[in-house]
């Protein structure tokens, strides 16, 4: 069940959340496969996630 929605900034498709979104959470848009990052909860907003940086990893 979707508990919150936002609009994909890349393709304008609706991005649904099945659990309460968290700031900095990363989701994938089902419309365009863009990787999005939650940048605001109230109001809910997502932006294109930053590119992976050189020292990022596990």
């Amino acid at each position, binding site marked *: 069940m979707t508990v919150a929605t936002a609009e994909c900034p890349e393709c304008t498709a609706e991005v649904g959340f099945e659990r309460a979104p968290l700031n*900095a*959470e990363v989701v994938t848009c089902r419309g365009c496969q863009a990787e999005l990052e*939650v940048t605001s909860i109230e109001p809910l907003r997502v932006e294109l996630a930053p590119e992976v940086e050189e020292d990022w990893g596990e």
Partner: protein
Amino acid sequence: MRIALLHTRIRAEERLLIEALDARGIETDVIDVRSFVLDPAGPGIEADAVLDRSMSVAASRAALSVLERSGVPCFNGTRTLDVCSDKLATAAALAGAGVPAPRTLAAVGEQAALEAVERIGYPAVIKPATGSWGRLIARVSDRESAEAILEHKFTLGSTLQKTVVVQEYVDKPGRDLRIFVVGGRAIAGIARSSEHWITNTARGGSATGINVSGEIGAISEAAARAVGGGILAIDLLECPRRGLLVNEINHSMEFRNSIDTTGVDIPGVVVEHVLERAGAPTIEMAAMRARSAAMEASA
């Protein structure tokens, strides 16, 4: 009890850890390191432990070096971070502890790097000292390809790319092993298979659960001790000649695809370990106490 969870992005792993903390009624401060002001002379952080899940090595090192000094236990600590985030430091730590690993050389100049490749012999693997997810790793099968890769690295690469690690190529049987070690104990493991020689699941490898008792668990636990311990994922190669070899050690492990595969509640084990080290009565400890109280009552 209060835990600070440091992050850059919230991936599935961070969400699972936050949920595991919530399920235990632990107050959790979820802190984006990118918005965190560090004060080395300040009082530190109001938390009983710090669980670092930042994806950036530089951000982790900055935050942990300040927080650790304030006396709060950090997972993982800076020593483990420094060793594991540098493949050369990892190789040195493993060699120092007598843990078997692929033969490794390193160089910071182009000609010396070529010399290192020639000494290892072909095929050889050229890697950056810092990096993850199988990025910028090359297998070279002859001097011409080694010269080409090294010229590109030294002409176009960043400073980090100019510390070149050269490793013997281990002709593994189409898979490698990843063992999760938490608090010195091997808790779960997967075999990652791929038709490509780079078997990272981040590169499309598929995973199945494996038993971590016996030699696999023992070498993984020895590797974890060698790098300072903590919450780690140990990558093992099965060398047809030398047996199990420790290839790399990950200090900020990903595990979302290994929970169902192994049947082990990895985030639960991680959180229990952090709480235990932070001094909280964990679910495991509470259950043990309940069992011994019941035994006393029935005696």
